[in-house]
């Protein structure tokens, strides 16, 4: 006689292997992020008393004169409304879909026209130069704008450290390609990974920074953690996020948005109220955070940074090189 015991576990109650492992990695990842983050930024960061929000304060930075008279866009608006197609095409997607993104450990590789290929960990990157606070206007090509207090260091400091050769005419920024952590990359809306670029003199301009934080805190995932490019006189899409590779090239990099729509987006993408876009008015902009009954404001040439960058483009036809 065969005695069988009926299982008291119904099949639907069994956790699938995939789910089980996902949970493991999630638990591990959350744990690791807290450990590494506090380890990496020792001496620079004090974790806030409010541990639940997991915001990490940055205390050592130099205040600068940039944008001190500007009214800052509310933190909640900056962190809940932006374009970051790696996390979805809606402007509310990044804040939701980037929750499981893991910005550490992180290293950036330097390659191309350099003396020697190099790697730099994010923690060493922090130490290349003293961190500065830069309050910059950010103008999106879609016609809205913000004022954001970034924390970062001039890109020129990184370039000096990278030691490019005389052949380096352009700098190419390549963002992370990982469709596990960046669900938006599962859809080919852009040619992943995201690629941006600058001419060498633009990259060396003192306004151009690599940001690691904002509002006195480490960069939130949805705003480009752990490090992103900020070029305040250009449309926002030039600011590549979650950068993993910086390559010095002799020829103009093929950037993601130029590939996606060459008649709409140019390599330069300088803020210019006189060069119209096929979809959006560029002569005025909506400043986020103003509420329902605040009128638009006039867009300024080079987003108001003509004094600092105007000379970079003398002799260049800006309506052709938009």
């Amino acid at each position, binding site marked *: 006689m065969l005695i069988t015991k009926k299982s008291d576990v119904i099949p639907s109650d069994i956790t699938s292997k995939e789910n089980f492992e996902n949970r493991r990695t999630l638990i591990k990842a959350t744990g690791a992020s807290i450990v590494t983050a506090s380890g990496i930024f020792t001496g620079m960061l004090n974790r806030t008393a409010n541990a639940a929000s997991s915001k990490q304060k940055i205390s050592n930075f130099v205040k600068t004169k940039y944008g001190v008279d500007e009214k800052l866009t509310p933190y909640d608006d900056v962190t809940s*409304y932006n374009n970051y197609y790696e996390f979805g095409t809606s402007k*509310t997607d990044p804040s939701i879909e980037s929750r499981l993104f893991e910005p550490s450990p992180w290293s950036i590789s330097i390659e191309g026209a350099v003396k020697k290929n190099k790697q730099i960990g994010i923690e060493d990157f922090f130490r290349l130069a003293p961190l500065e606070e830069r309050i910059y206007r950010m103008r999106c090509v879609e016609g809205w704008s913000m004022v954001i207090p970034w924390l970062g260091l001039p890109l020129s400091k990184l370039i000096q450290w990278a030691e490019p050769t005389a052949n380096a005419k352009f700098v190419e920024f390549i963002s992370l390609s990982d469709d596990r952590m960046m669900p938006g990359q599962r859809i080919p809306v852009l040619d992943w990974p995201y690629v941006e670029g600058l001419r060498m003199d633009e990259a060396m301009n003192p306004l151009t920074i690599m940001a690691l934080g904002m509002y006195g805190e480490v960069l939130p995932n949805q705003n480009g953690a752990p490090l992103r490019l900020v070029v305040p006189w250009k449309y926002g899409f030039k600011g590549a996020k979650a950068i993993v590779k910086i390559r010095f090239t002799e020829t103009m990099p093929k950037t993601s948005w130029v590939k996606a729509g060459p008649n709409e987006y140019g390599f330069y993408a300088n803020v210019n109220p006189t060069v119209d876009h096929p*979809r959006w*008015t560029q002569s005025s902009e*909506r400043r986020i955070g103003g509420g*329902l*009954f605040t009128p638009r404001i006039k867009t300024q040439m080079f987003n108001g940074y003509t004094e600092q960058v105007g000379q970079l483009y003398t002799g260049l036809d800006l309506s052709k090189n938009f």
Partner: protein
Amino acid sequence: MIDKFLNLLFKKIKILIFFLCLIPLFRLFYLGLNSQLGANPIEFIERSTGTWALVFLMLSLSMTPLRQLTGSNAYILNRRMLGLFMFFYACLHVLTYLWIDHYFDFDEIFKDVYKHPYVLVGFAAFMLTIPLAITSTRSMMKRLGGRWKILHRAVYLIGLLAVLHFLWLVKKDHTEPLIYVGVFFLLLVLRVIYKYRSYLRTSNL
């Protein structure tokens, strides 16, 4: 029998449908009063009213195919109301654009309309809805007679311009506007099939 029942039902619940159609508006008020319209509330209102105008356009265009599929006239009882709600949300959409988005800066608005194809087709679609709304009353129907039907065929052009407006506005991910293109196309195809079948029937006689 069923036809009579549906007729009665739709007459009874017409007021209910009316209030259902106002939910998108009440929702905007609710979100606005609770500061839940997001970082760019003007864009939110523009998107929301525009989307609902498009939804009501598709709903009003669904009534004729529904009548043909079911053989019941009851659906036509709601067509005018749905069409007028389309006009209502389109008006709110345009008003938001003219007023709180551009503060009646007509210099800027004029440039926006003629320079940007998506604004142009949207504006054209809205202009076309005005005569249809004006002639939607029973007395106007009587006065215009056969011409009323011809005039109201403009709704197909409005539909085409409206889906183009949405399609051209979107920067990259076209999934959402393409759904509306698909629905519009389906509603047109159903009409063509029905016309063809009734043509076959009459030519057989």
